[in-house]
């Protein structure tokens, strides 16, 4: 560099990040494409519109929850309770709908039920966020606790059995899952909307920037006048809302809730987030990665259903191996 004596040297125009790290960032996508290629080779039906639409529809539940989990994880937290929360929401929602139907009518009670699911989500999020920030308890512990609590309450409500939506309600409500708009199943549209909105919030709004800052270094964020407590609480509320939205789509599908509803969804959601390239320690993350992660997880399951090359006992092993391979493909990003 030939430097003029006085003025600071002119900045080079920001060049693009190195190719390798850009490729690494595409890791999960590459993983998904590779999986799709293998799947199609194993069973050409994989690539049919109806199958792909099935897979995406299913990925919507975990995917929507995982969008919320991305916020929580980027901010440096974790929420283990999402599966139980979904179960509790589904159960309460159905009970409320059934109870309200005689007085409010079908549509009215469905709307009331939907609203109540979202409210439970907001409430749970506030509870988590407050216990974690003001109560200064580790997120892992708080949400492990509520994992037990939510599921227990549902078990109590259902007296150990299952809670089913009345038929009339079920018929009116089921298009929310089974219906299509412009040929695309509604859950996929909702998933896309949630992901887009999530991406926009995380990457293009003040709040999203604060979430990243808090996850990167809470102390610095605090000194920079970021209201860390509010930012954190809000991530848990977003998580709760996302679980609520996923439950709104889940209930019309199966029309019931039981103590085993949503079991282990937390692991799947967190796995989707991390396969997507978000670091568990927080600070940075990307919604599109999470979306790819969720689709990838559900595709593995789908492929296993489509083929019978190996023993049924080994399904989970194949899933495990694929997850590790995909994570390996995108490891370039890590420091």
């Amino acid at each position, binding site marked *: 560099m030939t430097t003029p004596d006085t003025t600071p040297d002119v*900045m080079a125009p920001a060049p693009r990040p190195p190719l390798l790290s850009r490729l690494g960032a595409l890791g999960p996508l590459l993983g998904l494409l590779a999986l799709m290629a293998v799947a199609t080779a194993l069973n050409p039906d994989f690539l049919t519109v109806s199958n792909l639409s099935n897979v995406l529809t299913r990925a919507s539940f975990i995917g929507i929850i995982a969008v919320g989990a991305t916020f929580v994880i980027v901010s440096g937290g974790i929420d283990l309770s999402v599966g139980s929360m979904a179960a509790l929401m589904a159960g309460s929602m159905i009970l409320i709908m059934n109870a309200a139907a005689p007085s409010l009518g079908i549509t009215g009670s469905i709307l009331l039920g939907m609203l109540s699911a979202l409210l439970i989500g907001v409430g749970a999020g506030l509870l988590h966020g407050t216990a974690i920030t003001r109560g200064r308890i580790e997120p892992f512990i708080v949400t492990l606790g509520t994992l037990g609590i939510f599921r227990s309450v549902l078990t109590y409500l259902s007296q150990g059995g299952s809670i089913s939506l009345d038929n009339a309600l079920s018929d009116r409500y089921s298009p929310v899952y089974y219906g299509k708009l412009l040929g695309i199943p509604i859950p996929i549209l909702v998933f896309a909307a949630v992901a887009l909105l999530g991406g926009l919030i995380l990457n293009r709004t003040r709040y999203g*920037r604060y979430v990243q800052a808090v996850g990167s270094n809470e102390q610095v964020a605090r000194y920079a006048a970021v209201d860390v407590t509010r930012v954190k609480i809000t991530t848990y509320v977003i998580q709760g809302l996302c679980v609520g939205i996923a439950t709104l789509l889940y209930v019309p599908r199966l029309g019931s809730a039981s103590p085993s509803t949503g079991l282990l969804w937390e692991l799947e959601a967190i796995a989707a987030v991390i396969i997507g390239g978000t670091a568990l320690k927080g600070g940075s993350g990307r919604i599109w990665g999470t979306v790819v992660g969720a689709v990838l997880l559900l595709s593995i399951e789908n492929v296993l259903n489509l083929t019978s090359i190996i023993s049924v006992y080994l399904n989970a092993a194949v899933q495990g191996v694929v997850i590790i391979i995909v994570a390996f493909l995108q490891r370039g990003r890590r420091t």
Partner: protein
Amino acid sequence: MTAPSAAAFHGVTRSFGPVQVLHGVSLQVRPGEVHALIGENGAGKSTMMKILGGYLPPSGGSLEVNGQPAHFRNSRDAEARGVVLIHQEFNLADDLSVAQNMFLGRELGGALLDDRAMNAQAAAALQRLGLTLDPRTRVRELSVPHKQLVEIAKALSREARLLIMDEPTATLTVRETDTLFALIRRLREQGVTILYISHKLEEVKALADTVTVLRDGRVVSSAPAQDLTPHQMASLMVGRELEDMFPPHAPPSNAPLLEVEGLSVPGWATDASFTLHQGEVLGFAGLVGAGRTELFEGLLGLRRSTVGQVRLKGRPVRLGSPGAAARAGIVYLSEDRKGKGLLVDFQLRPNLTLMTLQHYARPVLDPRAEQRALERAVQTYGIRTGRLDVPASALSGGNQQKLALARILEVHPQVIILDEPTRGVDVGAKREIYALIQQLAAAGQGVIVISSELNELLGLCHRLLVLHSGRVVATLEGEAMNEQTVIQYATGLRTPAAQVPA
């Protein structure tokens, strides 16, 4: 030269990605001398020293230590040859204790560690620096100057033949600095060679035998210290004549801007009251541990504190949190750049705009407007970086400081509290920061400066408050504002009998 050099660089180059930082530097360090290395922020001083210390490999060229070629793969290799580096950015594990950090990687004891011996030796090493500190304290709990002293003690406790100090005094006040210098001189007598980096040129003049000036990754001069005045050093560093460091200051108005009454921070400061006027630069002096940092952290709700009353332009305000303070127009620059100042993993742009995002939200953030702001700030504050899209951790220490300063000034605050504003900043840039402070004051804003450099406080401030053990012991202005008086108050040699109401 008869004896081989204690250390020698031969055409050493270093690049980070496409950006070349060192352009073939050659340097001879005579054994047993104190050799100062000075240069502007980002000139490449730390990079050179990291290479010598085994922390970074050179891209090209070669090194010699004691006349023998040196190819260090890591710092352990360098230490084996007696080369020890004190980092500019602290290199301490927050969760470990002081003693555990000092002995990390070379613990004492057999199968079981001898913690008692390590604690005793650590305490002794700290004592040599004049610091009485329980060696079992976790580093997380230390203040920045104390971390600095621990970092120094850690290096001193190793058998160094060549000791590299990268801005060891950036946050130390006169007394700690004096103790350190006494130690350095003793080490020199014992034949230890010292490579010393500092932006405090008076110190360099007082301490060094030889001064080497680095500019933009090239050695521009290497000469005996006695041949250079601090002023000449500064001119060599920046490559042009520097005018007076401190621009003349306009008198402040009489209108009070910020009035604080009865501020106490439990364990740190007791019943402090002061008034900052519009257009005033108010200094806070005191020794390390006097509680200046904590006082203002308390004021902004960053620590638990109690306060009688705070008035801004005569109106009572409540500053419960940094957010409330920022909304009221009061901002604070932390002395702890890495821990509280910058998001080191983030790029420069989000770092700069973190406190002013509302200006870029319409309502969706406009990264291009942010980028323009960054380009402006880079110009205004002279932030030197090869590229704009690097994480803040890739900036040199002084340039990180400028970025942190730029962030809080983006807020256009009324009251600006600066804790060590020129920590690690080169003379040229320092001058610009001083000018900036005067400009802000001239525009009617109020500036509070906490600094370990007495010169800076004396040259910059209208009035000076001295803190001792958490109490305001003196308010000095005019004639009374001189080095001797400040030191007397700060060390407790003089008691606040003559206190003037602030």
